[in-house]
């Protein structure tokens, strides 16, 4: 391959247009190297952001062929091998665009602040005694500490793409989860309440955030941890929590999912009744058997013993 082509989605503040730039291939370079080359040799008007060039500041995240990456750490050759000589570059998805590849973090910062991503120290800490934690306690929040707020996890989040009025960017759940789990923080509810009110149970489990994060943070796992904490605190009056509890309950009851009772357990009788046309649709095709109650699996006593032992191991 002699030439590389960047096909870039541009925006001048008013209109959007596509522009192609071609430059000579050099081995062992990064996506950012290509952008800088264009800016320095072909088009100084091309706007993008990069600061540290060391995968630390999070500023350079862009979308290449539909996938968010950190431009400064992503090997160009790997992408060329995957997609061929032409790469399509766009600004991060699910962000407002300011210009070309530059996105607006301001509204995201406002949303992030709602989860109060700062330490609210426990009462026993003081200026003299400090705010210490053990290594084991730090280990619990180590992964989340690595978040550099690059926004990659939000770019292809399937839930966020269908509506952000009732859902946060994945990193917001990660930040909230970090402080809920932080042994030094004394106000778990302050972090938990806003995320529970806005979308904690609406994540669709698509795993895009886990896949995209360049720092191996796993927002979907943090969402699961926040859900566990909300259940632990008895905040179960919502369809998401009831659904999860129904699954866990079915596993200990019979080992298998009970499709017949799942809707009622999740939605309650009234809401389930509104789903009657859907249920009839399934009945007509023989997909729903209201009389099917799975018999306990062979070895169910063992399953119950394992679940009980797991519960006790944490107490």
């Amino acid at each position, binding site marked *: 391959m002699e030439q590389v082509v960047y096909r870039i989605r541009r925006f001048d503040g008013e209109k959007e247009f596509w522009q192609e730039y071609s430059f000579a291939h050099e081995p062992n370079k990064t996506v950012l190297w290509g952008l800088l080359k264009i800016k320095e040799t072909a088009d100084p008007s091309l706007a993008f952001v990069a600061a540290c060039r060391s995968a630390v500041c999070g500023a350079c995240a862009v979308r290449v062929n539909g996938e968010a990456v950190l431009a400064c750490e992503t090997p160009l050759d790997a992408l060329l091998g995957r997609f061929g000589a032409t790469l399509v570059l766009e600004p991060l998805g699910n962000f407002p665009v300011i210009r070309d590849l530059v996105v607006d973090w301001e509204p995201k910062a406002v949303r992030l602040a709602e989860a109060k991503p700062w330490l609210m120290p426990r009462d026993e800490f003081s200026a003299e005694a400090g705010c210490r934690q053990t290594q084991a306690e730090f280990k619990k929040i180590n992964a989340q500490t690595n978040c550099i707020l690059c926004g990659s996890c939000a770019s292809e989040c399937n839930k966020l793409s269908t509506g952000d009025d009732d859902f946060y960017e994945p990193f917001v759940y990660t930040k909230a989860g970090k402080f809920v789990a932080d042994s030094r923080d004394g106000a778990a509810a302050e972090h938990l309440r806003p995320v529970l009110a806005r979308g904690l*149970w609406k994540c669709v489990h698509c795993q895009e955030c886990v896949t995209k994060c360049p720092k191996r943070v796993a927002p979907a796992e943090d969402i699961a941890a926040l859900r566990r904490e909300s259940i632990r605190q008895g905040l179960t009056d919502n369809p998401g929590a009831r659904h999860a509890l129904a699954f866990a309950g079915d596993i200990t009851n019979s080992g298998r999912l009970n499709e017949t009772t799942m809707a009622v357990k999740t939605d309650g009788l009234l809401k389930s009744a509104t789903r009657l046309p859907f249920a009839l649709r399934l009945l007509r095709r023989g997909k729903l058997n209201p009389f099917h109650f799975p018999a306990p699996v062979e070895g169910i006593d063992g399953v119950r013993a394992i679940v009980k032992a797991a519960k006790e191991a944490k107490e």
Partner: protein
Amino acid sequence: MRYAFFPGCVLDGAAAEAREATVRVARALDIELVELPGWTCCGASHAQDVDELAAVAVNARNLALAEKLGLPLLTACSTCTLMLRKAKAALDGGLKDKVNGLLASAGMAYAGTSDVTHLLWALVRDYGLERLKAKVTRPLTGLKVAGYYGCHLLRPPQVMDFEDHARPRSLAALIAALGAEPVEMASARKCCGFHAVFPAERDVFKMTGTINADAVAAGADCIVTPCPLCQMQLDMRQPEGREAIGTAGDMPILHLAQLVGLALGMTGSEMGLGRHVTAAFHVAAKAGGR
């Protein structure tokens, strides 16, 4: 080839036709499926929201059952595959001793000797597409099939490391091996929304509608998916999906095994196409296998 077969709750219930098709196809290909005795629900990507350790331990038990048979574990569901592989990764990554302490209460132990695979991977990698091609008795000539991967068979790649998650090719290769024409749809790797249908109905119906509309726009005769949950969502919720995004156009959604079965000469009835909400028999008719 022998596998410990993990049907999962969905093949046991609402998607019974997928189980029937999988079993028939395996038999026709001389693949022996030994149903895992005493298998339990994989947790369906929900159990960890209640108790993470219990979710891993219950799947460690499933894995230990496969080890007892001395066989790799095979599922026909993307979510089951992800849950089992995730548990395996956690166990092999350091949780093994702790979880074996829990399994001991049921007189069991996890060693880490059985792999977890999916029907699609087994056909492409273990069986081989050339060998499969040789078994095709009724090539699906002229049938345009959009391969829809969905989420859990691709992501996260650290756990699901079969192929490039950003550019998977296995479905297109399989469709071509069956004599059909693979067509690309824009949302092949997007989420169908199945797992959040209760708490996020509005969003989920939009996702479902968009995926089906993308396949219509691509000129596909049908979608084929390796995941029975995606199949159910795209098929059973198709009317709500259409309504959510204001589109028209039926799109039959086939389980992976059903498409293979048709190419192996089985009929639409044998493959359980009558159990689909969106009529799929014309797919069989087009393939000459009414």
